[in-house]
């Protein structure tokens, strides 16, 4: 196990992305949340970013000296919550 505590702080529970993963990308100059999403798959798991995106936005704000309200958040898309294909086709008799 690494001694770097940032490797043990999970930011995205769906895809196991740590604080260190996020900070490393920001240190590389990748500060656009859309690009961080595509590099690490934050916001792409079952929670669709409802847990991790606000945290990632605050990490970017802290590390780049921006105001959190100036961080552009990725588009929210349907379905808002995971929906089974059975429900979507009206096959609801389980």
């Amino acid at each position, binding site marked *: 196990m690494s001694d770097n505590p940032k490797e043990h702080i999970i930011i995205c529970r769906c895809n196991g992305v740590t604080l260190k993963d996020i900070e490393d990308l920001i240190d590389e100059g990748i500060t656009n949340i859309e690009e961080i999403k595509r590099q690490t798959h934050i916001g792409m798991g079952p929670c669709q970013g409802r847990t991790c995106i606000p945290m990632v936005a605050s990490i970017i704000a802290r590390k780049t000296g921006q105001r959190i309200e100036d961080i552009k958040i990725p588009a929210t898309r349907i379905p808002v919550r995971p929906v089974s*294909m059975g429900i979507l086709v009206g096959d609801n008799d389980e």
Partner: protein
Amino acid sequence: MMNKADVAIVGGGIIGLFTAFWLAQRGERVVVLEKNYPGSGSTFRCGTGIRQQFGDDANIQMMVRSVEIWKDFCKYMEYPGPASECFTFAQTGYLFLLYSESEISEFSKNVSLQHKYGVPSSIISPEEAREIVPTLDISEVMAAAWNPTDGKASPFLAIRALVDRVRDMGGEIYVNTPVTELLIEKNTVTGVKTSRGEIKADMVLNATNAWANALNEQIGVRFPIEPYKHQAIVTEPFKAGEIKPMVISFKHGGAYLTQKANGGVIGGIALKYGPTWDISPTYEFLREVSRNFTRIIPALKYISIIRQWGGYYAETPDHNAILGKVKEVDGYYIAAGFSGHGFMLAPAVAEAMADLMTKGSTTLPLDFYDPYRFQRGELREQAIQMG
């Protein structure tokens, strides 16, 4: 910022970056100009499929070469760590489900043509198809076209590897740097004007796919490329390996679906909107994709869709790309209008473009994609447009 390059490439997607790689490997000084971030246009929105099962000579030949390169991608990228961590081109095959005599006869013809180029495809029985994907509903399936050497790959890892490799080789990639104008003197391109200043270049490649005509307007050239909204979905993960190949059914809305390495299903249907620049997801697509997917694999009704997104197919009238020299201005080239096949075709298309730009010719069948075929009224047979 670099102020002089041999080649300036406009567009940092899979086509622009792969061409930059081949050119840099031949000692050319390349600069890639990307208006947003690498992969942000169409590459990161793609369905991830890589297949040789086309129905015409040129696309089959290009894809055979592409698959050779995809297989050795990590070697080309000189990835320092273990290959398993570099990039996975999973050769899990493409399975076209066939539901009628006419589909079987069409795909039998395609298979014979594919054999000419060494593609190991075949027509198999419904039972054999179910051995490959045990959860398939084969009650109406009459046969399937199967090629085990087709597959899929992650566009995220591919772009990341190319960006690192091109930079290692001395190429420059500028992000958030839109190109606003071609610089032209005496009918010869001399560079590009960007948001950060001018860059001189002996050659310019327009690799902006759906956006290609924006740059062409300046020289009064317009190729028939229109943006259509296509969408895809991904599901929650479940046990990986249940749906290994890309499964295709024209009968079910032109559906394509496969399971990713992490266990989620990725796929879509042919339902499209356009021409349009709007790529917002539609409920109609969500409902139709569910209806069609659950008919192909009924057990999917228990699986939840977690995300849906849109992207562009930069479509041409025959669904084949526009590749070659732009005759109106010396030194100006185009590789655009991929109609949904840019990711899979990229390695070979990029190699052919690098050949054309450095040697003036290529052994790959680039003429098939001649930008001026539409002007001459020579539409190609439509490419099989699917996943």
